[in-house]
């Protein structure tokens, strides 16, 4: 009687997405990032070796992060008034493999700056670092549709990951990303059905699946994390099961979300039994990020340097 085979076999797989283009590929990046390519669940090398390891992108802003918690601002205080220096710091000091920029300065509530400004900021970013880039609009539909075409064109050929296409606003971003050779974030509001639908809409516009990264608006530990986790896990399982529209790498904004949690940032003076927030804050981000990795996330957008370094070590130790 042979010992029964307990390893899972999957009919499908996760498509490989390359972000960033070198000079040989029509861009100016000195490195590229490949995500996806898996034939099995993450961190189970005995089941299916192969596929690309998850990567961390430092998540920065184009403006001084006035709304951030002091603990989060402190490590970046010498660089955050200049997007180029900030990005360079993250690449050189924190060794991140990507930079993600949210164009907060274009948001109607925080500066409402125009498309030319956005184009100049991303050009500066592009010139400051050689790693692949993620550029995220404001999330305000009219503003993004005005700003992102110029951003896309300023980064033409760099194979940037642009965000975000949603169910009700995807045509403009899809068309410019197509024209300028970029990748797209397809975003859904913690809804697996809509997540799939956005991917269908993008493929209807003939946007290739190997240029899409899925994003389910992330919930931090204690703030919808379990829901995000189960959706992401189900997406991954469906993709591995053969659903091509779900067999797409995933992205999560763990840093941003974790630092919204009261448990991350409430001062020790108010909650003495919780211990120091200087340890607790990064820990909250780390725990959120690690959970996301286990659900199958391929690109983590992170904030605090200590959290970034710890999760880098975690990936290096567990990924084979």
């Amino acid at each position, binding site marked *: 009687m042979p010992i029964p085979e307990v390893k899972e076999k999957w009919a499908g797989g996760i498509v490989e997405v390359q972000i960033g283009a070198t000079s040989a590929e029509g861009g100016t990046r000195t490195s590229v990032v490949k995500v996806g390519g898996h034939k099995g669940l993450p961190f189970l090398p005995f089941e299916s070796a192969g596929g690309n390891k998850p990567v961390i992108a430092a998540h920065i802003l184009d403006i001084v992060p006035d709304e951030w918690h002091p603990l989060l601002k402190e490590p970046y205080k010498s660089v955050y008034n200049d997007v180029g220096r900030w990005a360079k710091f993250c690449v050189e000091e924190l060794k991140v493999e990507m930079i993600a920029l949210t164009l907060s300065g274009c948001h109607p509530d925080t500066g409402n700056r125009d498309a030319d400004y956005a184009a100049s900021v991303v050009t500066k970013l592009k010139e400051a670092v050689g790693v692949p880039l993620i550029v995220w609009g404001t999330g305000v539909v009219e503003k993004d549709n005005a700003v992102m075409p110029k951003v896309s064109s300023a980064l033409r050929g760099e194979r940037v990951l642009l965000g975000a296409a949603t169910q009700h606003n995807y045509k403009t971003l899809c068309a410019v990303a197509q024209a300028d050779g970029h990748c797209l974030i397809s975003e859904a509001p913690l809804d697996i*059905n809509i997540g799939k*639908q956005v*991917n269908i809409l993008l493929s209807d516009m003939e946007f290739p699946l190997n240029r899409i990264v899925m994003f389910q608006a992330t919930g931090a530990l204690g703030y919808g994390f379990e829901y995000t986790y189960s959706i992401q896990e*189900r997406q991954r399982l469906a993709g591995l099961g053969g659903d091509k529209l*779900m067999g797409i790498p995933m992205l999560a904004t763990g840093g941003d979300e974790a630092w919204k949690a009261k448990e991350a940032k409430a001062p020790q003076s108010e909650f003495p039994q919780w211990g120091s927030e200087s340890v607790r804050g990064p820990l909250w981000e780390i725990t959120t990020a690690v959970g996301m990795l286990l659900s199958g996330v391929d690109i983590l957008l992170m904030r605090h340097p200590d959290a970034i370094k710890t999760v880098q070590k975690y990936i290096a130790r567990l990924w084979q």
Partner: protein
Amino acid sequence: MIAIAERINGMFKDVRQAIADKNKKVIQDLARRQAEAGAAYLDVNVGTAARDQTGAMKWLVETIQEVVKTPLALDSQKLEVIKAGLEVADKPVLINSCQADPEKLDTYFALCSEKNASLICLTMDKEGVSQDVAKRLDNAMTILTKAQEHNVPVEHIFIDPIFLPVNVDQRQPKIILEVIQQIRLMSDPPPHITCGLSNISQGAANRSLINRTAVVMFAAAGMDSAICDVLDKELMDAWITAEMLLNKMIYSDDYIKAAIASLRR
């Protein structure tokens, strides 16, 4: 869902004529359309009219492989015709089909092992199609035991519980529902369950409606494959919808389009 497209069969007049005239266009057009419609396999049957059946099988396989990547289901009751197809097939095939007699299963499973092929096994033997549940299950058990003896993995086995035309024996569909459920309990993971779907409506009016109603019923009982007319859009839509309702795929507003895209190879 594993749809085995039935149209390239010498029983159809256009295919019979194309085989006689060596008219590639007719065959390749059917191959492309069926692949596009979501076929997981293209059934290839030379029919009974062709004088040189092995030659016709080789010609069909090569003609189809020129235009699509979809794997083939080599369909003949004659072993030498299947072997002729296997000689020229450029990827693992599904052999259609073998009865549940132990000596026949030995021959076919040995061939499957050698060629990494899958096999459709009928729950009938030399005594014919049984009228009850128990005999069909006996046959299914023989099939699974034989497969194990030959080290053929269970995912390579497609068990066909045999559909008779509804106007021949109307008690059959209900029996088959039970047979499907029982076969699925015989092994973990279960074998694939398939059927000659169009057979159920043979000679009846409203064939498409009967076929698509049957596919939904049997899919709910656990049937995951069918030899059918994939060009019947309403049939495919009903089957996909049943799979969606069974939580085998994730719902989205355009889930049918998504399913077809996933099914295409």
